[in-house]
């Protein structure tokens, strides 16, 4: 026992210094908000904002009824879009797998050279949006489906690579140790100890990325990389609002369907 006879009734969750910092942080946030609000007011042409409801109603009015005769013409671009997403995902996954194994701490062949390179590939791929990849690729390999496929693939490497390497790092080391103890070679340890453990994650990540890619590939046409986005752009340019509404509905239906497929597949695996 200690010698304390009177125990304090006061206990605080944070030290005074932390409380001051917290208060200061909130103050700074409020100040930033006020400043941004002021900046926004200066740069807004209020005439247009006041006009917005009328404009929205006008465009909305032109969008209905949708021009359903346009529908058959969209089938080919839609098929292209789905192909861009699917082939792009497959390509991205194929490239992501070796990158993930190089990036994972427990499987990387060299932690000093290859691992930083792999991590850089992942960050580079993730930091550039599909649309920007597509812009670059349209300039390099010309407009069309191929640019779209490559753009989707390059964007997917980072996403799939990152999630997959995290899954590899989370594998149970004991199962791997047990396979090593049998005298298995490196490739056999990979095949028996690691791959079975990451299979559910692998399929889950791939299907999830495919689902995201369906959404991303619908807009790639805006920069000339093929698919339904080309039609959207053409319709927008000619102010054919009743066609735009058909395209938007079609995209909505496709995305809902792909989300349903992806959810079902992931549910079946996990």
């Amino acid at each position, binding site marked *: 026992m200690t010698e304390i006879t009177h125990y304090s009734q006061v206990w605080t969750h944070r030290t005074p210094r932390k409380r001051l910092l917290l208060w200061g942080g909130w103050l700074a946030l409020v100040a930033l908000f006020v400043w941004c609000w002021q900046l926004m007011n200066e740069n807004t042409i209020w005439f247009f904002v006041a006009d917005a409801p009328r404009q929205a109603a006008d465009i909305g009015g032109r969008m209905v009824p949708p021009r359903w005769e346009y529908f058959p013409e969209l089938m080919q671009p839609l098929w292209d879009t789905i192909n861009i997403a699917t082939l792009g995902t497959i390509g991205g996954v194929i490239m992501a797998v070796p990158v993930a194994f190089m990036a994972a701490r427990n499987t990387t062949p060299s932690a000093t050279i290859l691992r930083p390179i792999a991590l850089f590939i992942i960050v580079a791929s993730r930091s550039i949006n599909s649309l920007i990849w597509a812009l670059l690729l349209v300039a390099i390999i010309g407009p069309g489906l191929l640019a779209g496929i490559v753009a989707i693939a390059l964007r997917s490497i980072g996403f799939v690579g990152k999630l997959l390497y995290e899954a590899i790092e989370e594998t149970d080391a004991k*199962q791997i140790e047990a396979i090593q103890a049998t005298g298995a070679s490196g490739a*056999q340890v990979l095949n028996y100890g690691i791959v079975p453990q990451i299979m559910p994650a692998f399929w889950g990540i791939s299907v999830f990325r495919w689902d995201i890619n369906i959404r991303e590939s619908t807009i790639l046409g805006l920069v000339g990389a093929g698919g339904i986005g080309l039609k959207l752009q053409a319709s927008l340019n000619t102010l054919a609002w009743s066609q735009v509404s058909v395209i938007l509905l079609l995209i909505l239906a496709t995305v809902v369907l792909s989300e349903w497929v992806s959810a079902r597949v992931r549910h079946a695996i996990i």
Partner: protein
Amino acid sequence: MLKLEGLSKTYKTGDPALSDVTLSVPKGQILGLIGPSGAGKSTLIRCINRLVEPTSGKVMLGDVNLVGLSKADLRRQRRRIGMIFQEYALVERLTVMENVLSGRLGYVPFWRSFMRKYPAADIQRAYQLLDRVGLLDKADNRADALSGGQRQRVGIARALAQDPELLLVDEPTASLDPKTSRQIMRLLTEICAERGLPAIVNIHDVPLAQQFMQRIVGLRAGRVVFDGTPDQLTESTLTTIYGEEDWHEMRRGDQEQQEAEAEARDRMAALAK
């Protein structure tokens, strides 16, 4: 025959886990390794097949020194040493048969293991082993569908599939209930006796070790402090290994547990009538 000569291991943190361990295990002997947590039991058996790299000393298996072998040579030598783990360490998402056949990985080329096209003799032997451990009908079940005792039997079959000359057994019963623990220990000792297989068994349950082991080695802070038969393991030697504790009380507790188990069994038998 296994001989350890002056085996030491110091981890990067500077903690000496093993200091100058010299031991020899003759053919057919089952040796129980006891000691408190952190005494270096796990490190000792992992230094033998070099899942942990020893700092110094020799590990002689027959006339091969395992310390200092190249990667490829080490792989060939690891085939001679079967290992059984505390929490089974089966590949959970593979089938029982794949797990048993993985004991052959050191013997088959990559493409065969990748395509799961093992030689007929290996497959026959795997079935034979599954029959021996009583799991022939579970061959195509996934490992994660089995109970603890069943998984440990698969672990034993996998180790035996290697056709080992030595078994390393790391806390085989730590995650099992008392009854299953005894069944697993009985199976292990029977199998070792059948094949004249030497084994080193890490075990923290002293009564269980005394019941099943032929020889007991006590480890404390990385040093061998006891080496003898189970009968020589007196209260004073247990105190040297584990430190002060009322050993008499603990043994009585174990006896009580056994009596309670026996009583429960009788009750169940009476109910079944």
